[in-house]
């Protein structure tokens, strides 16, 4: 779209003059606020706001206030890349957080390399993100291989024999199916069907009819909360009763309970945060503080399993800026390697991942298995 490009460039040139202000440190936030992942992206942004307000209340970073520049990537990879370009060139953000989905993040990554600006990845779980040799990527969410590894000891306890997959037809879903499939095969579990669905799809009855007819005992599902609600309702509508385990940590179990009702009963979910049992989280005091602030702002409790990522992401970025001693992309990139604190779901410190010389940073958070039982979230005893 050459005409659109020139228009964007023109607008950028006009804005560039007004954008660079020195009294605040700007952090770009690239999240899906509309489209298929709107609910999740909005939660992450609200969590990020809490972190920024908290840090600013304590005097900010390097004596300056943090300013979040929040842009909507419309759940669309093309838009995500355009948003990154806008944040870097027009808003002059020296560091960014984003972009929720794996395909969205992967679309942004070439821009990071092009402009040499670092980005903290708060949600995406495709393995490719930290193995493709992009030294500007620092991820605090678990890649699906790490999720699979954490889940591995549970496979025998649950007595899984044959597992089908129903995953999003994108990097997030297909990556999860590949990583979990590999782990299950190593454990001697048969992997049956791998069915996919479009991220915007609302009717999955055809896929579910196929899964119903299969002889597997368990279906592993990778998608975000809105689609999961639809899936559970449609499963119950066609009488599909198999063990369900979801991956990816974007399930918002409370929203599932509220919207899918009894259709969600008995489903199991791999999450990366335990807000139901703050005392069992790595930093109980911080968890309780975050949850009470979240509630004080009038947000639904269901959102915290998603919003804590934005909260921890901004806290990690703030520490990187602090350690860098200046709000410059190059020094922040370097300082990310020395970030070290306890986040709401485990230690945040980055280990090297990917090809030597161009490593990305990968933190190793906790992963939990929870179950929806009697309309409540429970930690299954196995």
């Amino acid at each position, binding site marked *: 779209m050459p005409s659109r490009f020139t228009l964007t460039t023109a607008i950028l040139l006009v804005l560039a003059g007004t954008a660079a202000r020195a009294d605040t440190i700007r952090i770009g936030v690239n999240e899906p*606020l*509309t*489209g298929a992942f*709107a*609910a999740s992206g*909005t939660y992450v942004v609200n969590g990020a706001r809490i972190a920024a307000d908290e840090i600013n209340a304590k005097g900010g970073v390097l004596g300056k206030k943090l300013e979040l520049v929040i842009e*909507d990537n419309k759940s669309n990879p093309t838009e995500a890349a355009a948003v990154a370009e806008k944040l870097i060139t027009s808003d002059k953000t020296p560091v960014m957080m984003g972009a929720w989905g794996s395909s969205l993040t992967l679309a942004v990554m070439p821009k990071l390399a092009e402009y040499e600006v670092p980005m903290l990845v708060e949600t995406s779980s495709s393995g490719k993100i930290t193995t493709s040799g992009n030294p500007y990527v620092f991820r605090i969410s678990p890649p699906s291989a790490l999720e699979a590894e954490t889940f591995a000891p549970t496979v025998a306890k649950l007595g899984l024999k044959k597992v089908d997959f129903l995953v999003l*037809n994108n990097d997030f879903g297909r990556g999860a199916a590949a990583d979990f499939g590999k782990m299950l095969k190593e454990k001697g579990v048969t992997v049956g069907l791998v*069915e*996919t*669905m*479009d991220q*915007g*799809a*609302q*009717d999955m*009855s*055809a*896929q579910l*009819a*196929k899964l*119903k*007819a299969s002889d597997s005992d368990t279906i592993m599902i990778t998608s975000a909360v*809105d689609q999961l*609600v*639809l899936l559970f*309702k*449609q499963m*119950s*509508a*066609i*009488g599909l009763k198999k063990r369900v385990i979801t991956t990816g940590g974007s399930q918002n179990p409370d929203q599932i309970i509220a*919207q899918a*009702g*009894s*259709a969600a009963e008995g489903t199991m979910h791999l999450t990366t945060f335990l807000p139901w049992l703050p005392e069992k989280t790595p930093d109980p005091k911080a968890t309780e503080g975050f949850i009470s602030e979240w509630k004080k702002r009038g947000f639904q409790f269901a959102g915290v399993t998603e919003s804590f990522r934005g909260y921890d992401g901004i806290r990690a970025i703030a520490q990187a800026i602090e350690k860098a001693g200046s709000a410059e992309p190059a020094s922040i990139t370097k300082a990310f390697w020395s970030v070290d604190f306890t986040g709401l779901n485990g230690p945040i410190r980055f280990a090297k991942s990917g090809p030597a010389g161009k490593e990305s940073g990968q933190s190793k958070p906790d992963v939990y298995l929870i179950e929806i039982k009697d309309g409540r979230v429970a930690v299954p005893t196995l």
Partner: protein
Amino acid sequence: MDQLIQHLVNTLILGGTYALLGIGLTLIFGIMNVVNFTHGALYTVGAYVMYLAVAALGLNFFLALPVAILGGLLLGAAIELLLLRPFRGSDIDTTMLVMIGAGIVLQSGTLWIFGGVAKAIPSPFPEAPLQLGPVSVSWLRLFVLGAALALIVVTYALINRTKLGLAMRAAFQDADTAALMGVNVRLVYTATFALGSSLAAAAGALLGPVYVVFPQMGGLAELKAFAIVILGGLGNLKGAAIGGFILALAEELGAGYVSSGYRDAMGFLIIIAVLLYKPTGLFAKAERIG
């Protein structure tokens, strides 16, 4: 075998609302020669009116449905009066651009008012499905099918059995002659657009509770409506009704037996085939409009 039966039942349920979407679009094109790019947005608006009525105002589910349909009717009439009537007589490109603009305004409007996060509409039907041997169907979906079929029959009767329908058919055949015979063609146009819009809103209001409601929901629905209309032949009501079921069948069987990743592509593969071998649509020879 059980799987095939389940697919066929799913087809019936899905096909009903697809047919509704297609009929609304083909009606407007057939009579007014307007390509209605607000169709998807009207579908979205229907779903949001349903959401407002049921979830926000606490209205009875079955009362909310006619409210949503009425909402679509009024909005459609307003669009016709404000945006289409002033451009009557100008070429099809002009009205097409106006309609594209109106569609964007409506979609952005719902985003602005309701936000991007999806909303769920509670339904009064039991969650446990109806069990028919190996096949299960949800009560809500059965109701949706019944309501869609009822609306199709009412539309058909309206066009074939009423004076307004007669005027619509006359205006379709030759607007000038119809005007000379005393038909108020301007009123016919407004009524046609309102009727087509109300059918889109009805489809949205019926499917809203089945799925979730969000501002972009109309995009895919509109694409499918266009697919159905091309499949059935432009301006052909019966063609659109049958086209809706054919599209649903293609999607179900395509996803069930070929590849679920290409589910939404199946319908468009059929359209390419139709355009290659029968460019006027599958049912072009049949009498159009009614």
